């Protein structure tokens, strides 16, 4: 249909190229046909086909055979989702009931003890459901990642998260879970699960991949500062500038991480009263350096 609509000029310009798709597809079809029918030739083939068709009718397969005829390469594909003039899905489209309301899958967590959180996670529906597919058998200690300066209206950015790496039977980290933590209502929900292959350097270490002591050492080494007395470094993430993915944007040059709970940065209240951040690139930053989104994430 599309070829039929091309102008004569277009045909001349794109003659060789336009022919390529048909050549490739037809070539393969012919090869398959030769493979299928080569052993069955001549009179024997004709007899076999007659008997075969008779048997097809007898055992009730005549419908398939008939609908496949007529030169339509896909003519016996049944009508269903993905057909012309057929709603793509079963809900939400005109004339259909609304799709099920999204069930965030909140589950209770009674304290911020990592052990309590680990137990809650291990019994959560998503954790249990995915275990068979991803073959994790144990988890590391969950780490709390704080939402930093976010007021977006989206709980993913506004709430803290618990992140935990999981291990397979060999003890290798094979994945990492991220859960949104609603402190006010003492509940959590599944956000995402990332697959760690053996090629990933993080498959050999627990989350977080940069320890708090390493972060403190970086602050001390670079600025000769210590954490403020009575404070502990905290993992944080933030809603990043929406231009971060844009290759030509200055925001894309940011290499410090922090745009995901799975790649958090360390927030350290320093002995000089200032806040500093140690990125996933081990750079030391101030808050003004962070490419935090303005307004909605």
């Amino acid at each position: 249909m599309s070829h039929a609509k091309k102008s004569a000029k277009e045909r001349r310009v794109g003659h060789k190229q336009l022919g390529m798709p048909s050549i490739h597809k037809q070539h393969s079809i012919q090869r398959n046909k030769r493979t299928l029918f080569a052993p069955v030739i001549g009179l024997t083939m004709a007899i076999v086909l007659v008997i075969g068709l008779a048997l097809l009718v007898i055992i009730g397969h005549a419908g398939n055979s008939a609908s496949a005829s007529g030169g339509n390469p896909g003519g016996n594909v049944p009508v269903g989702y993905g057909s012309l003039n057929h709603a793509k899905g079963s809900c939400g489209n005109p004339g259909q009931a609304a799709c099920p309301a999204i069930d965030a899958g909140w589950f209770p967590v009674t304290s911020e003890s990592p052990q309590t959180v680990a137990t809650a996670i291990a019994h959560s529906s998503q954790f249990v459901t995915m275990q068979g597919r991803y073959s994790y058998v144990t988890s590391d200690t969950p780490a709390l990642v704080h939402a930093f300066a976010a007021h977006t209206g989206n709980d993913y950015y506004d709430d803290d998260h618990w992140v935990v790496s999981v291990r397979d039977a060999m003890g290798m980290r094979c994945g990492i879970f991220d859960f949104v933590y609603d402190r006010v209502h003492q509940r959590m929900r599944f956000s995402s699960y990332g697959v760690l292959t053996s090629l990933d350097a993080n498959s050999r270490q627990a989350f977080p991949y940069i320890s708090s002591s390493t972060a403190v050492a970086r602050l001390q080494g670079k600025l000769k500062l210590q954490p403020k007395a009575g404070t502990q470094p905290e993992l944080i993430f933030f809603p990043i500038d929406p231009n971060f993915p844009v290759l030509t944007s200055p925001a894309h040059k940011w290499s410090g991480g922090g745009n995901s709970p799975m790649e958090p940065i360390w927030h350290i209240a320093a002995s000089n009263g200032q806040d500093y951040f140690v990125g996933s690139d081990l750079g030391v930053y101030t808050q003004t350096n962070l490419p935090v989104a303005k307004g909605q994430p």
Partner: protein
Amino acid sequence: MTLVQRRLFTILLSITLALALVQLLDLHGGLQVQATTNLSSDSQVQTSSPNCSPCYSFYGSNHSWMYTATNDWYQHHGNWCGIANIRAIQVYDWLYYNGKSPQWDNSQEAIYSRLNATYSPWGSGGGYVRENISRDFGTDPHAIAYGAWYDTPPSTSSQPYWFHNWIYRTSSTTATYDFATDFGKNTVSHNDPISVTIDGAYHSFVVDGVWATSDPSLGSTTVSSIDTWDPWLNHANNSVDGTHPYNQTQNQVWSLTDWTTNRVMWGQGYNSFNGSDPEPDTPNHYYVPPFNSYGVKYHWNSYFVTIEQDRINDATTSRDYAIDQNGHLAPHN
């Protein structure tokens, strides 16, 4: 007597061969159902643990084949997400078709060249590749649909390889339920991975399945999460420039909550005004908006956009045509 014996032998041989032929036909005809219900190699429908409540199962592509299909990722250039996705779908489909690779150069670079070798019936949009019908900075949905169709195997009576750009003028949730019907035992696509335009059209993921309470291809299910593959990352979860703007891991499962609310995924629809992904602009204005007779202002803008394998015969409705959520041709001039 000898003649009768010869005829009897011929008849018996014919019946034997006919029965063998019937078996062959039956195998091809029932392949889709057999594949999923028996958990054979082309798809995976995994039963969840009885201890979960609610219980979800995975419906979608074969993980091992997906891993192979993405073995040349990350995308080789910053604007080649669509090209990397075509390559992944291509490799996956050929693995399904004959367990091999296509007999032509299937590198991302070759796919890029092929997308520049021809153009739509309405002319080229003047974008990064000639198959674009817009001035897209990378590959627009039309180019991806063409590339997926071109690079995948020839269609057979039981297994067509037809691709179209689906444009869902619905909510992100409904659109997700719409594409979820690609996965399960009743899908025409053998649980083929699909290309999903995200982040306001600036990027695209391959989605290879969903977690749901029952088979999405049969309808009436509840989807809990989406299995995504990010072409920005390789198997080691590294990117070419060290950034992770989207997934942190190449293969990442996202909750439906986040999938439909986070702006880097389907928290926003196609954004034709982001400076990178404009509306179609071809010499023939077939898909150049507005479409006043439909009361529709845009082709892609604000909608949820995918490239999916489907049941729409390319011989009569080619990959050049976009389809809406009702299975109708997308509004046009």
